[in-house]
């Protein structure tokens, strides 16, 4: 009996695989497209070499003063290097920098821990620590309460301030916005209207107006003689602003939890808070994670607006450096480029994480 053997596979035709068909399909599909491709390539050929030359090959890398920037055809990275401590830490005393680093490390450690730890440990240790972290950090950075050298908030600054302010605001905004979102879904008419007004107010007003409100109106609200720290007022404003946006994110999350989950919790006899915290909240956070990250990126970028009310975050440190009398050589391009790259790396990686979570959660079979 003759056994059936299939013929060997034929190789794919030459005009669909390989580099030349790819080029034909993707770069030169039509005459017009070919022209555009050539124009773009020509543009890159003329722009890239001088740009790279300015950025790297002719750039000035070593030195400590402006005089070290001898090659005028290249970027003066000496400016960035000389000011890098200021860019990242502001005017915080050099020997006390370990405090800032400790706070940032703690933040990273807690975030990692809450993903890696066992559920019980996470709920009992990581989450309370996470919620307390802003306050612990303030105690450490300020120093006067625990016997360290006192560092006034006027000296806090730089990129680490952007990071810490954004993180501290979102951490406090988590419980607050959750309450607002619950309020907006509540059956009680008065609680619902108060929540709607709060949320829409903080979403509808420019964040700059809120900062001005924080700096010119908040002092009027406190009893006479109380002097509230500028950074604290900024933190309050950022937290409320963030809560407005996050409340809407959470509301979307609540709506995405299937009704059966609520009904199942009710039929088990769970009370309102048990139902909300044990059944609904974990699902809401999971569903809303990409949007929470996107909102955080927005908040993080918006911390640069603090320049306008005179907080020494990274961009305003750069502005100060650019107008410093020892560095009046027109280094604005280098300075802004550096700040842009730092922010870009942070925001881009966060949006990558956000979209990877989104892809993991997305189980629809599109296309």
């Amino acid at each position, binding site marked *: 009996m003759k056994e059936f053997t299939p013929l060997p596979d034929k190789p794919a035709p030459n005009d669909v695989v390989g580099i030349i068909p790819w080029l034909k399909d*993707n770069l030169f599909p039509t005459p017009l*497209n070919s022209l555009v491709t050539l124009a773009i390539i020509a543009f890159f050929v003329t722009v890239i070499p001088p740009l790279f030359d300015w950025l790297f090959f002719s750039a000035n890398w070593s030195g400590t003063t402006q005089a070290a920037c001898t090659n005028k055809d290249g970027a003066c990275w000496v400016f960035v290097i000389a000011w890098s401590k200021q860019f990242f830490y502001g005017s915080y005393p050099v020997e006390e920098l370990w405090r800032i680093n400790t706070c940032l490390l703690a933040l990273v450690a807690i975030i990692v821990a809450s993903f890696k730890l066992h559920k019980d440990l996470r709920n009992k240790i990581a989450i309370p620590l996470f919620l307390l972290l802003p306050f612990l950090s303030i105690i450490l950075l300020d120093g006067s309460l625990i016997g360290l050298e006192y560092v006034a908030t006027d000296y806090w600054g730089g990129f680490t301030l952007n990071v810490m302010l954004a993180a501290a605001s979102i951490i406090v905004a988590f419980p607050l916005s959750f309450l607002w979102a619950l309020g907006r879904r509540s059956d009680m008419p008065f609680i619902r209207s108060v929540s709607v007004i709060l949320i829409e107010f903080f979403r509808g007003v420019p964040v*700059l107006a809120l900062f001005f409100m924080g700096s010119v109106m908040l002092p*009027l609200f406190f009893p*006479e003689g109380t002097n509230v720290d500028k950074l604290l007022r900024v933190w309050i404003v950022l937290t409320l602003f963030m809560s407005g946006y996050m409340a809407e994110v959470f509301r979307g999350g609540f709506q995405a939890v299937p009704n059966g989950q609520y009904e199942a919790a009710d039929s088990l006899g769970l009370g309102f808070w048990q139902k909300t915290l044990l059944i609904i909240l974990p699902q809401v956070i999971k569903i809303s994670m990409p949007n929470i990250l996107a909102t955080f990126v927005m908040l993080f970028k918006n911390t640069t*607006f603090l320049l306008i009310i005179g907080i020494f975050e990274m961009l305003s440190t750069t502005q100060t450096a650019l107008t410093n009398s020892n560095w009046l050589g027109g280094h*604005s391009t280098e300075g802004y480029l550096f700040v842009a790259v730092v922010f870009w790396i942070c925001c*881009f990686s966060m949006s990558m994480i956000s979209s990877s979570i989104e892809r993991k959660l997305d189980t629809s079979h599109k296309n």
Partner: protein
Amino acid sequence: MSEKPQVKSSPSFFNNPRNRSLIYQFLLLAGLVYFFYGIITNTLANMEARGIKSGYDFLFTTAGFDILMSLIPYDATYSYGRTFIVGLLNTILVSTIGIVLATIVGFLMGVAHFSKNWLIRKLAVAYIETFRNIPLLLQIFFWYFAVLATLPSARQSLSIGEAIFLNVRGLYLPGLIAESGAGFVYTAIGLAFTAIFFLARWARKRQNDTGQQFPVFLTSLGILFGLPLIALLLSGIPFVWDFPALKGFNFRGGITVIPELMALALALTVYTGAFIAEAVRAGVQAVPHGQTEAARSLGLKESRIMKLIIVPQAMRVIVPLLNSEYQSLVKNSTLATAIGYPDLFTVFVGTTLNQTGQAIEIVFMTMAVYFVINMTISFVMNRFNASVELAERN
């Protein structure tokens, strides 16, 4: 033993949801009343201690400061109320420019994402990912301090055909000066728009009734350009060009676009454009592929598939996103204050607040203005959204 436990027919007072919700709401109300009472008494005490006046009388006193750019006649002798209007108009100007340009850039880049050309696709992605992830304020500074400040001085201006000049002091465009009889042309333009509106309505009705199509787009184009052109010729061209010319150290005549406005409009356009491009991309991707396949199997041309199948469905995703992008553009235009473009925020919350010290009234008025602008945008976009929404049968 057989005694049954007594079951209450109604829950205790505190376990009754109605009573509970009343108690909670009353507690919130009491808390809020206490909070606002505290704030108001503190504020009044503080204002008295610092000698701050209250009320809106300051709007009618002389402002006494100049404003860099104004769309209406203004000088230092006008009142604070006038500064409010000047700032408001400047805000509306930059927001309108930003919204129009960002929409154009955003749609171009969003569509470029689906180009057949690999390079164009990658350029669109690079544009979106670069400008979305850099803080807007930094982009404003970059355009203002690093790009526009390095332009040549007035004498070495870059120029196009001796009509448009670009230098470190701004962009100079030729302007049109209307002479008597211009009203005739304006009427013709208004008439053209009205005619197009009614033509489109008539054509849609005819198509619904009889199935016959009417070339609305070409006819509209003809009306839009034809009517004003006829009016222009009939009235003997009542406009003259006003070209900018170098007189002394600066240009005079024409329309001047100050560098602050240019930097702000550029940054807002590029930044918001990236978000709109992302919205357009999301909208087009949200249309299931089966729709395109079904359209192809019906034998529609690729261009008709785009116009009749993809775009109407993508718009349902795009329009709500556009709504929030436009609103955030208006809110972001307050960053004008960082480079000194005289928008509402710079003029009113900046200078006027500094001079009068009436923080509460001024911040309140400004917030109210942004609220109203955003409500207007939201209203218009929601009307637009209703027109593109899926018509569901209930």
